[in-house]
């Protein structure tokens, strides 16, 4: 029980730190005004290592952080990350063995799904002009950044999941 508390505390601290870093001006490198975001891959990795219940909890937590930040209506990220966290947790418990390869595969699909849904909700639904331009010029780059950060996030969270474990 004690290990679990330490582990969840470490995950929460990690998410808050990277959430703040994501939004600090000039902190992260950018490409065509698009910056890497580590918060979403972290949620997916936590769900992968911990299962569906923890996955949905931390997905909701990350969603609250993202929805509370600038200019978004409440609820979208909470629902999306909650659902994705649950599904990834379920997959990791019942369908796959968690290895580097399977983790990358599952999280890559989840990252693509996340950004596509974000695109549809915030750009297509609002009927911005040039929606497809926004997709290839911005969202494809966000997806690429998200995929590139997956290995880093995997190796960041794996020690936490293994070492802070009762087993």
């Amino acid at each position: 029980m004690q290990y679990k508390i330490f582990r969840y505390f470490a995950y929460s601290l990690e998410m808050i730190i990277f959430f703040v870093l994501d939004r600090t001006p000039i902190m992260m490198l950018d490409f065509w005004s698009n910056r890497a975001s580590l918060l979403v891959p972290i949620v997916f990795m936590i769900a992968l290592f911990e299962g569906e219940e923890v996955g949905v909890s931390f997905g909701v937590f990350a969603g609250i952080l993202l929805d509370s930040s600038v200019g978004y209506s409440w609820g979208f990220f909470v629902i999306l990350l909650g659902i994705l966290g649950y599904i990834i947790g379920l997959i990791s418990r019942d369908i796959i063995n968690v290895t580097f390869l399977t983790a990358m595969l599952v999280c890559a699909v989840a990252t693509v799904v996340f950004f596509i849904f974000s695109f549809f909700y915030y750009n297509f639904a609002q009927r911005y002009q040039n929606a497809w331009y926004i997709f290839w010029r911005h969202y494809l780059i966000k997806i690429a950044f998200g995929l590139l950060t997956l290995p880093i996030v995997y190796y960041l969270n794996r020690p936490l999941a293994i070492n802070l474990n009762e087993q």
Partner: protein
Amino acid sequence: MRNFLKKDGLKILIAFVLITTGVAILNFTWIAPKISAGINYITAPLKKVSGAIFGIAERSIERKKTAEEYENEIAQLKTENTKLKSQLIDYYETKRENAQYLKFYDFKKQNPGLKFISGKVLEKDNNDLFKGFTLDQGTINGVKINDPIVTDKGLIGRVCEVFDSSCVVKTILSPEVKAGVLDVKTGDNGVLMGNIRLADQNLTGMMYLPSQNTIEIGDTVVTSGLGGTYPKSLPVGIVKELSYDDYDSSLFAKIEPLADIKNAVEVFIITDFAERK
């Protein structure tokens, strides 16, 4: 008496008195300095040699510091260094604040009819494609929705969401921020409205230009004050290009904002102005 006068001691005494008197008299003549210079000339090299020898001797017998003394000295120097670094940081911070106060004062002088407060950028939204950001002023500081955001260079945007101690800003690069603007030189009116293609080039658009306009590249565009959302004559940008819209073929001007929107750190929030409705 005769015996006293014959003694050698007396003769020596008399000779001594005569010599002393002679030397005293010499002091008041030009000969004495010459004699002094001559003596110095002869003895100076000897003095130098003896000084050098004495210096070497002094250094060789000087007591060497112990390791402990060196350590204490290093610790003391480190403390002093840390203190000086801290003072340097304070100095730069004060210098930066002074520069900001100076801008604040200049802006106030140029715009006496505006009521405004200064704000600092807290965070930039990674997901806002139009470079929106959050400021550290909120309702407790008198900030309201639609308050214009400016720098000393020009308009940046407006407040779109406000909380107790922070507010969210959308910039003039966004299609959601519209402003009535006019060309200062020609008087042609238009509506400032951005789109993503222009925003990626750090430009915004002056839409709905009259077909008979006389706008030229390089003209300055300012707010017209129409609509009551923005004060009149706030600098907005410079006309970069005239073009036709892809969707409705209307003529519009590409405007390069005067304010540095991407790198904005400290801005002014206009909380009240004369034209406000």
